[in-house]
């Protein structure tokens, strides 16, 4: 008799962790894609940096 049997709780936790991980990874990809789109636009301008006195 094993005490290592996986409980339904562990499955639920793993599902939650994998889900959050995938969402975070997708978010990173989305922000990267958004950044590329915004900086490659024709009207994109770098913010003016004031020169130090």
């Amino acid at each position, binding site marked *: 008799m094993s005490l290592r049997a996986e409980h*339904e709780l562990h499955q639920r936790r793993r*599902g939650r962790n994998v889900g959050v991980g995938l969402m975070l990874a997708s978010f990173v990809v*989305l922000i990267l894609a*958004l950044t590329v789109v915004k900086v490659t636009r024709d009207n994109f301008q770098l913010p003016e940096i004031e020169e130090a006195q």
Partner: protein
Amino acid sequence: MSDASYSERPIEGEASLGDYFALLKPRVMSLVVFTALVGLLAAPISVHPIVAFASILFVAIGAGASGALNMWWDADIDQVMSRTAKRPIPAGKVTPDEAMTLGVALSGFSVIMLALSANVLAAGLLAFTIFFYAVVYSMWLKRSTPQNIVIGGAAGAFPPVIGWVIATGSMSVEAWLMFALIFVWTPPHFWALALFMKSDYDDAGVPMLTVTHGRKTTRNHILAYTVILAFLAIGAGFTSIGGPVYLAAAVTLNILFLRGAWKIWRRDETAALADDYAVEKSFFRLSLLYLFLHFGAILAEAALRPFGLGGWG
């Protein structure tokens, strides 16, 4: 220690990802995504697909956040109504505090991200929509006035305006016509539901029109709002979001909707009980199709535009 106590029974208090997702009211979210997307695509300025995708996603997250806040606030009445008793909080899967935290966190996240991906006006409108649904509707109107869904319906009507503002950065008559379409559609849609879900709202003590003013008054109101809606929906066909496809759909759908409202108006409770509210149920189902097809027709006009076919030329 033995493992005699080992059980396959689910343990309460450990919600799955699906339970948190259910807090965001996915069905409402899908309607928000659809109407916001139509607003975005019907606008005269085109948006980069990735910007459009990200912006609509953040609008959907904002809508989900307001859904979570609504479930947090309404957990007590959700428990009483059979339609809502299986929601994550009354079912004991998610605690009210978790729902509130998720709602507040996602509200802030979605508004800031929409400001970055689209513009500040769209983000401001999203913030106002969340505030309107969570505070004005859920916390204030829902339990205090039978006009709850009339005024609260504004929250559900904002997404196409937000979509339009994402594309253009400003508002216009067409955006507000799409707003009006959902705003005036909401009362007959919910009052038809209230007619055949009678005991639910009674039990929960929610002052629906059916409870406070009686069912005959509710039937009168359904007809009145449907008449106003028909004028609005057909009138929108002559603006820049309309066209022959939209107008044909609007005329057909509004004739059917008016016929349904007329049938509801002519009936009394004895007749409704005799066929288990068949007319009210069919009107409710038609109302879902009504909104979907109106926005689908606006989308069709926008899709035909690049080929020189959409709109009035």
